[in-house]
Each structure stands twice: as C-alpha cells, then as structure tokens.
C-alpha cells in the first residue's frame, strides 16, 4: 500500500477551493462539547482562523451557570494564550464577548432543555458541530447510551422541532468500525461489508431497563446485608452513620460496576471494543436515519492526542486516553502491556482533527448525496507502531525519569507484549495475592507502622486495579488491527488552497512521530500529569507531607485537641487496667486462677469488643461490682505508675503538652473509668470519662452514663466545643481505631495514631496525618497486665 510510505509533508498539490475563512464568513456555528479537549481546540481555532464567524456554545449550566463555565472552563485555558497575546487580555475578552454566545443546554434532555433564548440562538445557526460525548471507556452502559446516542437523537429532534436544517457535523470515532482486523473505510456503517443490524431505539430502552434491574438487584435483602458486612469488614465498629454511608457507597459502586460490565459485554457481543464505540456507532446510524432534510457530515477521529502545531505544539487538555498508560509506564506501574510491537497505535494530534471538522463544516454536502465520512486517523498513511512508542518512551524515561516518593528515579519496565489474556491473568493473580494479604492483615492485631503495610497494600491494589483497567480497556485499542483509511480526508485536504492547507492542514503524513513523541507529546504529558520529574530534596514527598500536616496540627490557630486514651496515649486498655487492679491484692493461687479465667474469656471478650464497644464496656465493667471505692482509688495511683506510665507513649504525652503550650484546649475523651485516668488530669484541661455508680462505699459495676464511644465520642467533642465556645473547624483529634471514625471525621485536623489496619488504610486514602507513637524504648512491659506480687503483710484484704 503506497499510503503507508513515510510521511513527506507538502507532497499534496494545492487545490483551488475558495478559502475556508471566506466560506465560513458570516456563519453562525453552534457547538456542543466545548468544555472538552476537542471542543476547546475547535472554539480556539474558529475564533483565531475564521474571523467572521460567530459561535453559539451549548453548555450544561451545572452549578456555576453557563457564563461562568465559559470563562473558567473554556476561555481561561492556555489554548487561548495565543489570542490573548494577539489582542491583549481586554481585547480578547471583547472579541469573545462579541463572537461567543453561551447558551444553557443539556443534550441528554428532550428539547435539549433549552430556554427561549437558547431555542432562538440555535434556530439561527447555519452549522451545528456535535462533539459532546462521553469518551470514558468505562462508562456504565446507560450513561454511554444517554450521552452518545440519546444526545444526538435529541439534538436532531430539536432542530426538526425548530424547523431548521443547519449543516450538522457529527464527531464520531474511527473505532465504530469495531474490533475486526483489516481495512476500515470512510463509509457509513450500514454500507460496510461487516455491518451488524442493530435497532438503536431498542438499545436505548434496554439500557434503561438494565439500570433499573441493577438498582433492584442491589437492594435485595441479601445484597444489602452483604454491603453492610463489607462495610463492617472495612471499617470495623465505626458506628451507625459511618457504616451506613459506607454500605451505601458500596451499593452504588456495585450498581455502577454492574452497568459498566453490562456495557462492555453488550459492546463485545456486537463486535465493538467497548460501550463508547458501540454507542457512537449506533449514534451514526440514528443521525443518518433521522436527518430528514438536515445535511450531515461525519468526522471520525482515532485516538486524539496533544497537538502537533496549533495553537502551540504539545497543547493538551485533561488526561487523555494514552496519558495514563504513558504515566503508568514511566512510573513502572504498567509492568507489561498486551499487543504486539508491530501493532499500530492510531494516534492523531488534536489540531489535525479540529482542521478536519472546520473544513468539513465548510463543505456542506448536497442533500441527495451520500453522507460524507471523514476519518481523521494516521494508521493507514503514516502508521505509528506501538513498539516505536515503547522504544522511544523507554529512551525518554531513561533520560527524564519520574521520581518516586523516596526520590529514587523509576526505571521504565521492560514490556514483552503478551496477549491480553495473559497480561490480565498475571495482574489478577497479583491482585488476588494482595486481597489475601489484606484479609490476613485485617485479622491480625497489628498497629502503627506495621498497620501501614495495609495502607501500602491498599495503595498498591488501587494502582494495580488502575493498571488492570488500562490493560482491559486500552489493550483492545492497541491490539486492534483495523486500518483506518482517510482518502476522503486527504481529498478534502487536496482541494484546499495552499494557504488553507497551511492554516487548516489535516494530512496525517505531516507528523514526524519520533519528534512528536520525544519533543512534543511526552514532555507535555509529564507536565500535565503533575509527576515528580526531579528529586524533591533530601527526604521523600511522603515525609514532606507528614511534616506539613504536623505543622497544620500544631498551628496556633487550632483551638482544641481531643485525645483518645487507649493506644493513642497509652498502650493499654480497660482489660489491662482491670487485670492489674484485680490481681493487686491476691495470693499466688488466686492470681493464677484469675489469669487463667481471664485468658479463657479473652476470645469472646474480643469478639464482643469488635461488635459493639459500648456493649463490651457495659458487660466488662460489671466486674467492678462490689469493689471497694477507696481501695481502688489508692491502687489506681500504683496502677498509673506501674502499668499506665510504663506503657505510655512519651511522644504522645509530649504532643498533648505541645498543644497546651500553643494555647489549645486539651481534652481526653475516653471509655476508661474516671478513677483510672485521674492521674492524667494535669495533662488535660478536661477529661470526659464514664463514672461507675457507688453504693455504700462500693462500686456497683454500672455506668452512670453512656461512655463516649463511637458517635457519642464525636458528640462529646461537639458539646464540649459548644460549651467552651470553641471552633470545631479549628479542632484536632487523635485516635487509633475505626470505632473513632466519627470523632476523627468531626474535626478538621484528624490524626490517626498507631492506626489499626483499617484506619491506616482510611487515613492514607484521605490524606490524614498518621503518627506512630511507641512506648519509651527500653521500658519494661509485661506480657500480661498483672500487678507485681505483694507479700501477704502488704496486701489489703
């Protein structure tokens, strides 16, 4: 095929067509999807290169309203820097105000949800460019159908309704050709040799029904129970509210996943790579079918990437399709990728696509002529090999490595290009291993720095999941061996005058891929991807972040610091305190019996504790029934010295005092009993702890009020803050377990101290400060919390 010869720009003879700017002079052009990558570039080029046209932008108002969105999400983009330079900031603003009219529209709604002004403006247009699409490859089926198929159907219906017949330029995708091998020509799907008849109306209906079914399924008793259990597994005894929102989140996620899978399955069954290509394909059919007097042109770009030259080389907006793969490669995340070295990565710079759309728009087809299709793709005439990208990318990242959190440069991985199945099997296996590890870690009583392993694993799993989704979705594209022809596009290009060929060039053969990859695209992607391309200094970013968070926590502006006791200030718990006090005055035989009994009960106590901490405390504090008050008070002083201080975290105690020195109020909120924590009074401004009922100088084992646990702990802090007129926005809380989630979530500066695996994972995800406090090094700690043996003479009865 001659078309695959190396690119030699400028070999196309100039045509004699009227200048594009002239053809479009005085035209009013409506455009959808202008907040997107392609749309923004299109607006910019029209404003800059077609001076006499005016634009009507159909924008979804969102929360900000269309005018704001126009300014913030479109005109502020660096694509317009060139215009701003030409006209000055004010001049550009004037120009935009004169030529751009944003109107509120939602293409997924009937009549596009236009108001009267909108309808008027749209009715007035000579050309409509429909580029709004949901390009994400992992959209749920109904979302893809709504945007990509229902959208253009609504658009055409509205035009008919308005009684107008502007030239409709529909932006589709080259991938509507499906996953088959071989030539893909610029022809309508239904005209192609491999057409599969599809009833698009029926697909809309079934997508809606699938959503309803998925929602229903997620609300069955079993499913709801399962989500609740999963939430519990993840968060532990975190309280009703936290568990409720978690299980609802899990349910929504499950529905979404179901719909995504549904989309992929349906697309596959029809020979498409994914729901995006499938819905776009069905949209083409629908548009042609419904056009009825509206002239239609179809532009099919392949994978759109950063610009070759316009508005400046390397211009890109947002994270495109290939970027995650490139960054994933540079960061060593994608250890391998399916496909073959020779496979074609059909990439097309955005400015070539924009030119194709503008030129197509300027060439309104005759009504009775076949609908023109222009493919903007490089594969057939200037193929870019996957292997080239890999080789050049490897070189590039060796010279310009990405740095990890510890300031180590990451070496690019060696890809072997396995089959997609092999690649995904490997990754699934790895993920299975991580899942197992998490399960084991969650079951183990690990804390602090060891629990952060769980957070590490969680992070790794997230990355792996990302990698899996890239491989699953994009792997098909890279492995896709269809060859997208572009004869129509080249012919159109050929018809342009020499000036227009320079101004609106759309010949993919101009691109020198090596130059494009090395000097334009990869640098641009790295800049966009906000990755670390230089070492940050002596210590890694992970440390820097913790330092920064610590500074925020220890800022003078904070007003109150709330502390949990167990495993936050002291490595002990209510069971330990009781064990110590209970063995304080026993002889050896009694001690042995008590220890044995406690050990046999340990498992059931721990189970109860995991289920509901309040119940556990209520149950456990019964053991203080009939204990003499004055003796316990005396023994508590020894308990403090012998057990609590020895198990205290010096760093934590210093932290409390740092807060006080900064003028913050400090408050201890604990489920431990008041007489046990009393020796800690000098550390805190206040202590919130439960008291036991007393009768005739003895405790009854019943608490006087509910202990501040779970939501009650957050509530205790709220009340405390309200009572002392403290700003919760300026509050800090230290706690160690997911049962303290409500407390940690109630403050603006949560600190996870020696977190268990679940909290470690949550803290990592939410970017909370994590402190690993430890008992004094060298301090003696006993395996069992038992008081030292006292000779008989020194025991109290």
């Amino acid at each position, binding site marked *: 095929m001659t078309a695959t010869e190396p690119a030699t720009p400028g070999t196309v003879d100039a045509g004699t067509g009227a200048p594009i700017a002239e053809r479009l002079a005085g035209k009013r052009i409506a455009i959808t999807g202008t907040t997107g990558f392609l749309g923004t570039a299109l607006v910019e080029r029209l404003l800059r290169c077609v001076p006499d046209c005016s634009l009507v932008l159909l924008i979804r108002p969102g929360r900000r309203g269309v005018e704001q969105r126009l300014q913030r999400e479109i005109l502020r983009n660096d694509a317009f820097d060139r215009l701003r330079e030409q006209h000055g900031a004010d001049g550009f603003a004037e120009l935009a105000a004169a030529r751009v009219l944003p109107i509120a529209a939602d293409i997924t709604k009937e009549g596009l949800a236009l108001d009267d002004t909108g309808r008027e403006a749209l009715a007035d247009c000579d050309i409509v460019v429909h580029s709004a699409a949901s390009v994400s490859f992992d959209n749920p089926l109904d979302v893809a159908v709504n945007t990509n198929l229902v959208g253009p159907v609504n658009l055409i219906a509205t035009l008919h309704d308005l009684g107008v017949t502007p030239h409709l330029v529909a932006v589709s995708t080259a991938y509507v050709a499906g996953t088959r091998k071989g030539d893909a020509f610029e022809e309508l799907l239904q005209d192609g040799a491999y057409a599969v008849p599809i009833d698009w109306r029926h697909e809309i209906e079934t997508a809606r029904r699938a959503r309803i079914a998925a929602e229903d399924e997620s609300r069955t008793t079993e499913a709801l129970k399962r989500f609740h259990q999963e939430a519990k597994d993840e968060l532990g005894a975190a309280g009703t509210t936290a568990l409720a929102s978690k299980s609802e989140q899990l349910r929504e996620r499950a529905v979404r996943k179901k719909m995504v899978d549904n989309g992929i399955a349906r697309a596959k069954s029809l020979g498409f790579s994914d729901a995006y290509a499938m819905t776009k394909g069905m949209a083409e059919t629908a548009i042609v079918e419904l056009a009825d007097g509206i002239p239609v042109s179809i532009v099919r770009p392949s994978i759109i990437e950063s610009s070759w030259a316009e508005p400046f080389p390397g211009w890109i907006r947002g994270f495109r399709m290939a970027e995650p793969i490139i960054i994933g490669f540079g960061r060593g995340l994608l250890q391998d990728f399916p496909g073959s070295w020779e496979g074609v990565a059909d990439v097309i710079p955005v400015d070539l696509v924009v030119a194709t759309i503008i030129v197509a728009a300027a060439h309104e087809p005759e009504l009775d002529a076949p609908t023109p299709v222009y493919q903007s793709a490089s594969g057939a005439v200037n193929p870019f090999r996957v292997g080239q990208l890999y080789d050049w990318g490897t070189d590039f990242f060796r010279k310009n490595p990405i740095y990890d959190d510890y300031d180590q440069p990451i070496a690019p991985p060696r890809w072997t290009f396995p089959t997609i199945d092999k690649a995904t099997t490997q990754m699934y296996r790895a993920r299975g291993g991580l899942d197992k590890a998490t399960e084991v870690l969650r079951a183990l009583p690990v804390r602090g720095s060891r629990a952060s392993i769980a957070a590490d694993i969680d992070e790794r799993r997230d990355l792996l999941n990302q990698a899996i989704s890239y491989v699953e979705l994009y792997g098909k594209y890279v492995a896709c061996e269809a060859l997208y022809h572009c004869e129509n596009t080249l012919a159109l290009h050929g018809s342009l005058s020499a000036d227009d060929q320079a101004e609106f060039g759309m010949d993919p053969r101009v691109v020198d891929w090596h130059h494009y990859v090395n000097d334009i695209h990869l640098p641009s992607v790295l800049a966009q991807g906000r990755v670390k391309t230089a070492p940050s200094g002596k210590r890694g970013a992970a440390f820097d972040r913790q330092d920064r968070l610590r500074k925020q926590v220890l800022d003078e502006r904070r007003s109150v610091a709330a502390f949990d006791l167990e495993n936050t200030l002291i490595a002990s718990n209510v069971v330990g305190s009781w064990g110590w006090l209970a063995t304080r005055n026993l002889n050896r035989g009694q001690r042995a019996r008590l220890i044995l009994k406690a050990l046999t009960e340990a498992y059931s106590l721990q189970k109860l504790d995991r289920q509901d901490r309040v119940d556990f405390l209520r149950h456990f504090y019964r053991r203080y029934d009939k204990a003499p008050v004055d003796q316990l008070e005396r023994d508590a002083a020894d308990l403090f010295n012998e057990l609590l201080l020895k198990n205290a975290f*010096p760093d934590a105690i210093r932290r409390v005092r740092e807060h006080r020195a900064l003028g913050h109020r400090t408050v201890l909120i604990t489920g431990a009993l008041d007489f046990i924590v009393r020796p800690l009074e000098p550390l805190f401004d206040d202590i919130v702890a439960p008291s036991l009922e007393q009768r005739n100088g003895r405790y009854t084992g019943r608490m006087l009020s509910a202990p501040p646990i779970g939501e009650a702990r957050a509530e205790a802090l709220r009340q405390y803050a309200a009572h002392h007129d403290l700003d919760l926005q300026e509050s800090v809380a230290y706690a160690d377990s997911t049962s303290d989630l409500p407390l940690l979530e109630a403050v603006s500066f949560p600190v996870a101290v020696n977190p268990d695996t679940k909290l470690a994972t949550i803290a990592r995800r939410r970017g909370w400060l994590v402190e690993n406090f430890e008992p004094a090094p060298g301090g003696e700690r006993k395996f069992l919390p038992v008081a030292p043996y006292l000779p008989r003479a020194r025991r109290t009865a």
Partner: protein
Amino acid sequence: MPANEDRTPRPGLVLEVDRSTPPILFHHGEGFRLESLPAGRSRVLYAAEPLNPLEDPDGAIRDSLLNPLNDDPLPSKLFAGMKLTIVFDDISLPLPPMRRPDIRQRIIEQVLDMAAAAGVDDVHIIAALALHRRMTEDELRHAVGDRVYDAFAPSGLLYNMDAEDPDEMVMLGETSEGEEVQMVKRAAESDLIVYVNINMVSMNGGWKSTATGLSGYTGIRHHHNVDTLAKSDLMDHTNSEFHNRNWRQGDVIRKAGVKIFQIETTINNNVFGEQGPMSVLQKREWEWNARDRASFIAMQKGLQLMTPKARRKVFHAHQAPYGMTSVQAGEVEAVHDSAVDNMLKQQLVQIEGQADILTMGLPYLSPYNVNSILNPILVMCLGLGYFFNMYRNKPLVRKGGVIIMSHPTPIEFHPVHHPSYIDFFEQVLPDTTDGHKIAHKYEKQFAEDEWYRHLYRTSYAYHGVHPLYMWYWGSNAINHAGRIIIVGGDVKAVKRMGFTPASTLNDALEIASDVVGPQPTITHFHNPPTVMAEVI
C-alpha cells in the same frame, strides 16, 4: 573476708603497659570488653584493694555519736518535747546499693534509741531527695530497715521530701552573693537535724548534704549551672566554686539557727566482693588465675545468652558487700574534713602527668539509675560528669586531648523514672548540645513544667530539670576535651550528643589520632572499684 585478713590491702598503682601486659578489662554497660592498650605509651590507673572494714561498726557508730567532733554528744542534744528530724541520703548512694544492713539503718536505729531514751516523741525521718525521684517502699525499707520503716512509715513519719510542695518548703534567706537558701520546712523548724550520710566520693557530704539535699530548684540552681561547674574541681571541695556556694548556703543555714548534727561515713571499695563470680572484676588482670579466667569467660558467655532485660535484672540485683571504714559525727565541717581524709585513704592514687587520651569503661550504674536504666544522658554524665572529675589537682587528660568511653549507650529510657530525659533527648539535643544555650533556652521550661512536677511529686520521676543538670555536669569535660569518642555505642545516640561513635577501641584510637597525633600517651581509668587520681 578471709583473703584479706592475713595481709594489709595493697595500695592503688599505675601500671605502665608493655608487651607482656594482658588485655585490660573495660566495663561496658551490662557487659565487659577486654582491650589491648598500645605498649610503651599507655598507663592503667588501678584502685587500691578494699581497706579492712571496721570490725564493730555498731560500736564505732555509738562511739562517734557519744564523742562527736567539735560538738556535744548526741544524747545531750535530745530532750523531751523537742522536734527531731533524721535525714538520710537517698537511693543514689552508695553505688551499687549495699547489702543489708545498710549503714543508714545501723545509724538511724541508734539515733532513735537515744531519742527514745531522752523521751523525744516528735520524730520525722526524711529521705533527702532534693530533685531526685521518690524512693519506693522497697527501697526505703532497704535503706532504713523494716523495723524503722514499719514503726514510722504507716503513720506518715517516714517519707520522701517533696521539693515542689510550696507548703512544705521554706526560704532561709540569701547568701552574700545573692544565692537563695531553701529547705524542707519540717527540717528547718526542728530543734535538731541529724543528717545521715554515706560518702561514696569526696564530692558528697559537708554542707552539700543539707544545702543541696534538703533544697528544691530555687536553692539548687545557684550552683547546679554551667558557669559554676566550670570553676569547680568537684572532688576537692577546697578548690571548687560548686562547694563554695554550698558552703555559703550552709553559712546561711547555720545563721538561721538550724542545728545540724552531721554524721558522715566512708566505705571501702569492695564493690564486687572477694569471693564469688564477680570478684574477678576487682582483680588486676595479670593476676587472674585459671579459675578467674574461666569464671570471666563463663560470665561473658552467660551474659551474651541473656536478653538485655534479663541482663539488666542480673546486674541491678547485685548488692555490694561494702564495709564501713569510718564514721564521724558532730559539726558539719569538722566531720566532713575527717570523712574526706578517711575516704582518700581508700581512693587516692598518684599519677604523674596528664595523658593525650583518657580511656574509661563505663559500667551499668550511675547515681541516677539504681533499679532503672542508664539512658544516653546518664551515660554522658557518668563518663564526663563523674569519671572525668575523679581527680585532684588537674584532669587525667590534657586540655584538648581525647576522651574515649566504652558503653553500648542504647536509646533506652525508664518511662517512670526519667520522663523529662526522653523529651530532653528528643527535643533539646537535636537543637543544641551547648550547656549555656540549653540553660538559656530550656531550663525554665523543664524546671517549671506542670506535668514533670506532677510526676516528680506523685510518681517516681526525677525532677523536670534533672536531665539538664546531668548535661551541665558533663559540660566541663566537653569543653576540656578536643574530642569525645564512645566505643560500641548506639550511633544515633552518640551522634545526637555531639560525640564520635567508634566500633572498637582501635577505631577510636585511629579517630583520636586526628586530634592528638599518631603516638599519643594514654591513661586508662580502671574504675570501678572506685579510684581517684591525684595528678602531679
């Protein structure tokens, strides 16, 4: 002690190391090292053998109480209706704790007998802690004996002083130099204070007993500071600004009408006993016989097999079979002079000239970690504050020379006894190791901290300011030495204190050659047993 009964104990000596000198024992925390010192230019300073103890200690005590120095016999000072306060040295003396009966018990029992005979019924017995930690019941029982403890403690008449109790401390005035004098109120208001000392080194005793021992931060800060210590030969009270200030404070105490009957005792240096497995530690290496070698090797192996915790327990369980060598009672200064004379008989060894390098093996124990942990700050203080200062006339090492200490220096702290040490190590030392800067920036904060105060008063913690005092104590040596090296220490701890870590003595000597040249002279300070150098 049969081995010693037949002969006069040999005096201390200075050994010139030659090629036939066996490796020398270095204490190394809860373990030991045997090190070969370079021949021809190294000397080892050995303590004298333990002096023979008094044969009848109780009789000697009685005799001293009845025939005091520059004072009337104790019974003549006791009368019915008087307030009597017996004060005794705390857990920091002696080191290690002595086997029962403790000297304090022997003396207090006799004083109480005399008081009972005189019909005295208002008696308080107070542990003179100053800013040290409170003694536990077990420790108090050990010091005063069960009989005294059971008779007085339950009714609250035997107790640890509390220097932070504003109601129980009193100001006695100021010296001519403006130094405040503070004292436990009960003691100050008594008709007589009987102060029971155990003098371990010549720094102890004299007016320091009451001026420091019964004072709080307000009084103590006037001599426990870098500038005073810089002008002090701590083991020679006649040449020590530190003692001058204590003596000035003593003057104020005397003028305030506080009557003190001082009792000072000296002990021999029989730290490890002349029998048993540890006796080898106080023998001279070239005199080790086969049994000594075997028991040393067995001890080394045994210790290596133990966990650090078990090792610590073994060492801290050791109680020394100290024998009392003298007891003197009466007027403070006369008693002190006599006690120092008696102590020097045991401890003083003459050595000619200063060395370029001073080496010392630091043992597991200092005054501030009895039943506790020798944390890095205390390692520093033991080496630089105590061992370095064990001289008269001039230091063992020349100005600008190198001090090499051997100790594992683990980053370990006793969470109950030394809470402010942890913060000092984590907060202050990373900022500065300069004594003046520390005093200026941190002393007030540590001294007045509410939490430390709470722990000092109600728990068993040293006063908040104590770690700073430890650092001041060693500051003199830091300024004197050109470099300080710790052999076998935790690298992080050693560096944080501003010292140089070395893994072996040879490495340390190699490092030292940067400062003192390739052929330096070396003196090894072979302590314990306790020895004091007179450098001429």
